[in-house]
């Protein structure tokens, strides 16, 4: 049996000012997984993600990615394996054209210009960024597109794992679904493992396969979405409550609904089942 792609063992992380952010985290992530990290503001989701790609070095314990321990591996090596898309695209757009922006990563890892070109075109294609934007300044683009450029710029490094921090904050329902559909496509058709950090429970219910709930530096729950959402008392510890449709199903368990109901469609299907005569 092959070992998991990312292995986190007894990870402890303290901020430079001494605050304990992560306390004894153990987790494994396989290639091609689709995971969401949930938890209240300040629960350690972002810090944990930054430990996964080596931006933060563990204070204790180990993060091993594809056989490389983040403590001893240079960050350049780490980011080639685990890409991290920051929440605010404005923090990560440094260049004056979209082309340079996407090419920035591959150039940093000193690829030949031909290879850089190939990767830029591929990444732009995957995120659906039209060639006509290549010469535009990323700062001029609307937020949705800036986010796509940011994702493309990470894709160009061809990491096996991509972490996306709060991709749906500030987006409307339609835009959120478009972004999520796109991430699912990356996961299913291109085989990247995707980790999504989010507060948006209807989105989690609809898209997540595995949910990791973090609270006060610990993993409170880890499992399939329906299972994690079946324990509202655990989620409440980290200020999460399941979407209303799940809450409705939980309150009507006696009538035969499953506490792990995630979407309206599932609710309807169960209703049909229950009322079939």
């Amino acid at each position: 049996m092959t070992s998991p792609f990312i292995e986190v063992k007894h990870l402890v992380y303290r901020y430079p000012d001494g605050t304990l952010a992560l306390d004894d985290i153990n987790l494994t992530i396989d290639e091609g997984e689709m995971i969401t990290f949930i938890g209240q503001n300040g629960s350690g989701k972002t810090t944990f993600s930054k430990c996964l790609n080596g931006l933060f070095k563990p204070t204790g314990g180990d993060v091993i990615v594809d056989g490389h321990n983040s403590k001893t591996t240079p960050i350049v090596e780490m980011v080639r394996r685990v890409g991290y898309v920051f929440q605010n695209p404005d923090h990560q757009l440094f260049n004056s054209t979209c082309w340079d922006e996407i090419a920035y990563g591959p150039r940093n890892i000193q690829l030949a210009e031909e290879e850089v070109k190939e990767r830029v075109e591929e990444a732009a294609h995957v995120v659906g960024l039209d060639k006509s934007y290549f010469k535009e300044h990323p700062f001029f683009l609307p937020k949705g597109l800036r986010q796509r450029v940011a994702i493309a710029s990470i894709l160009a490094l061809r990491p096996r794992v991509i972490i996306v921090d709060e991709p749906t904050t500030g987006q409307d329902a339609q835009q959120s679904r478009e972004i999520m559909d796109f991430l699912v496509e990356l996961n299913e058709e291109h085989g990247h493992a995707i980790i999504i950090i989010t507060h948006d429970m209807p989105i989690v219910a609809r898209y997540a396969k595995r949910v990791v709930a973090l609270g006060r530096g610990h993993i409170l729950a880890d499992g399939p979405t329906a299972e994690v959402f079946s324990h509202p008392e655990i989620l409440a510890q980290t200020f999460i409550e399941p979407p209303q449709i799940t809450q409705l199903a939980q309150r009507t368990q006696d009538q035969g609904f499953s506490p792990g109901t995630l979407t309206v469609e599932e609710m309807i299907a169960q209703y049909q089942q229950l009322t079939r005569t």
Partner: protein
Amino acid sequence: MENQLNQEELTAEQIWELQPGEKRSVGVIHIVLLALLIGIGFVVGAFGSISFPLGFGVNFFWTGIAVQQVGAIWFGAWGVLAASIFPFFSNAISGTPFYVSLAYIPANAVQAFLPAWAFRYYKADPRLKSTRDYLILLAAMIVSSAFGALYSPLVVLKGFGLLTAESVPLFIWGWFGGNVVAGIVFNFILLKALSGVVIRTPSFVKKWWA
């Protein structure tokens, strides 16, 4: 500021001239701008002062110049004000005594004022569209930094007895070079990258105050 892809191009003249019916007045936004410029200058300037120090707030490569000159080109007198004030903070962090910073004010003000004046007077395009724009910027940078470089070591450092007459040239060249080189590196990039957006925002200052 969001979607500005399909808009007609402004000419350099239009950028600086008031359009018919255009009303501009000083408002809260300028106060905010002033504060933000001081804030960014504080950080960026301190960064330069700590990274490449020559002493007494003089550096081989002073990143703060970009905030001074680009800030004043975009935001007129507010940029000049910010440029005069923020070195206080950034120098303090790098250990420059209070009264030395106070005495630097004229040098910092001129360094910010001159490029801003040149762009307005010669109607140069802040997006740097032509060779002329580049030349005007470069000339303004050189002249203003030369003033700063001469004034500060001679008047301030000599005045405080920090330097001997013979070592003044080193500090003059240090100040001058530190500003011009950093200016060349940053001013061009910032103006080229962001002017197109800035001139369309309500914060852009056409005259001196609004």
